[in-house]
């Protein structure tokens, strides 16, 4: 039964990964102009282009090309960046790690902020705090991350000078932990805002539903009071939903991170993707898209597996 479920899920993930690879491969095909020019840049010589065509098998049928590309990609060979002339993998990996740092910080902020405000809103639904937070949630939910980033930079970096706006060049091996944290605050808040808004909204709804259930009434009739009621009686019943919510909005968080990196010149994969697109560095674009999509799929898979596990535990006991 469990084996069956895991196999089914694995098959689905395998198909999704195949689909992702097809789309990423397709990016190259849809790029306007000649593929070899796209990969090598307009300045490349004709002989270099012809050599690349030969290497990539561009004269072969498209299905063959796909498998050649897939084979190279699976071996970690994404080609060469036309901007930096480095291997694409060498460009992408360190920046990917920088992005993971930023996204993780943003996720932590979004979860802490989202869950606490969501619970507090639900605890006194319709009260002053609830109305204030609901209004803020609406505003932050409609706010483009790049603009929020600029507003934060103006106030907290330029006016109050609390935090640096940019200047993050090397995450690992650069400054000390304090320096990193200092550079991390504004970007992480920026990337977290929209996600936090979504989490507040959904956590509030989940809590309200649980707080309306009979066993909460029974607990109140037993003399249980606010804090214990929320944390001991309501929270365990909300946990699976909350986890699901966090999984569902990861897409927003990653999207927010991409913009944030551009605004704060954070040396991450979003900034790399942006520069690659402007520089028509197709191989780098492909690698960035593939890395982000892959991590998104794997994180979602992990969330699903944890949820399955929790659901099974509840049912068993």
């Amino acid at each position, binding site marked *: 039964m469990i084996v069956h479920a895991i196999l089914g899920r694995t098959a689905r993930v395998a198909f999704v990964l195949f689909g992702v690879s097809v789309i990423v491969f397709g990016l190259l095909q849809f790029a306007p102009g000649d593929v070899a020019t796209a990969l090598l840049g307009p300045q490349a010589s004709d002989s270099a282009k012809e050599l690349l065509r030969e290497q990539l098998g561009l004269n072969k049928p498209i299905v063959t090309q796909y498998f050649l590309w897939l084979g190279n990609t699976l071996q970690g060979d994404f080609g060469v960046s036309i901007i930096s002339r480095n291997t694409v993998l060498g460009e992408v990996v360190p920046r990917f790690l920088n992005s993971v740092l930023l996204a993780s910080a943003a996720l932590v902020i979004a979860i802490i902020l989202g869950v606490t405000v969501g619970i507090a809103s639900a605890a006194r639904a319709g009260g002053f705090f609830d109305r204030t937070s609901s209004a803020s949630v609406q505003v932050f939910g409609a706010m483009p991350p790049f603009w929020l980033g600029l507003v934060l930079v103006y106030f907290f970096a330029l006016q109050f000078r609390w935090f640096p706006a940019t200047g993050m060049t090397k995450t690992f091996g650069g400054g000390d932990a304090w320096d990193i944290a200092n550079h991390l605050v504004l970007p992480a808040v920026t990337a977290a805002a929209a996600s936090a808004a979504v989490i507040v909204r959904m956590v509030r709804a989940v809590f309200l539903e649980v707080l309306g259930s009979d066993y909460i009434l*029974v*607990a*109140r*009739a*037993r003399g*249980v*009071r606010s804090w214990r009621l929320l944390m001991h*009686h309501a929270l365990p019943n909300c946990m699976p939903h909350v986890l699901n919510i966090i999984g569902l909005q990861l897409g927003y968080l990653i999207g927010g991170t991409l913009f944030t990196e551009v605004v704060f010149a954070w040396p991450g994969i979003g900034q790399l993707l942006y520069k690659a697109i402007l520089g028509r560095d197709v191989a780098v674009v492909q690698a960035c898209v593939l890395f982000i999509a892959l991590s998104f799929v794997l994180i979602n898979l992990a969330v699903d597996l944890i949820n399955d596990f929790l659901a099974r535990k509840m049912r068993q006991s």
Partner: protein
Amino acid sequence: MKDLAQVEPILNVRDLRTHFEIKRGKLHAVDGVSFSVNPGRVLCIVGESGSGKSVTVMSLLRLIRRPGKVTGGTAVFHGDDLLTMSRQQLADIRGDRISMIFQNPLTSLNPALTIGDQVSEGLILHRGMGRREAQAEAVKLLRQVGIPSPKERVTDYPASFSGGMRQRIMIAAALSCKPELLIADEPTTALDVSMQAQILDLLKELQAEINNVLVMITHDLGVVASIADEVMVMYSGKVVEQAPVREIFAAPRHPYTQGLIATVRALDDASRPLHPIPGTPAIPLGQRMGCAFAPRCGFATDQCRLETPHLELVGSAHTVACHVKPDPDRTHV
């Protein structure tokens, strides 16, 4: 009877009013209800669904949620008014000196907490017991209410118990602090018939043992006959009749009570014709005039339709709110 009247009641409710603000207007779910219960007695509150029985007892412990609101009256418990005391004071009384058992055992237990956690919680909150001590006490309580091998099962979650077992667990939790007042809101309605009798016997037995007051809501007159000392009949948010149990069955004076009893007798005895009360229960919405039962009443006069009847004494401890007060023998001729 006189002696009983002089005993200080444990709970004295006067003119309790609870409204629900809904789209169509103000719903007078509890509309001026008064009653008191004396030590060691069992009071049954009887009425159709929607008559305000549940809202009455929920109002006492201030468990009414929006859009409902307790708007008036007093509920004096040992000299303190439950309706105006501080939240902290009330939380200290809830589950300790006043406990409640609810209708649906399937939804009343928290699925994410072990039954031991839930049975022992009152002891931890109100008796200051440590976790371990409270768990040991919970095992005893579970044994007392008839849960087999309680020591092993105390760490199980509610999902692995049947409906009847869960109601026993609820009872164990409610009685953990030996409350002076136990309120049971239709505790057997959601159970099958054989289980109903068992739970009822258990409640009776435990009530005798702790010698507390039991206020039980039911729409089942069979339950009333087997457990009640006093009976209070509610209709459309008001008390229409109140009397000791023998008198209610022997000489009911309100046409509504008479109708209820006739229905049950017909069910028990196939030779009698079945006389369900015609019409549907009145919804206590907006401004009201006259007796709420008048539209369904065979005895209704113009006075009934214009003037609201008030409770008046018709026996030593028997009150009824009816202008006509028909003789019981004249019922459904």
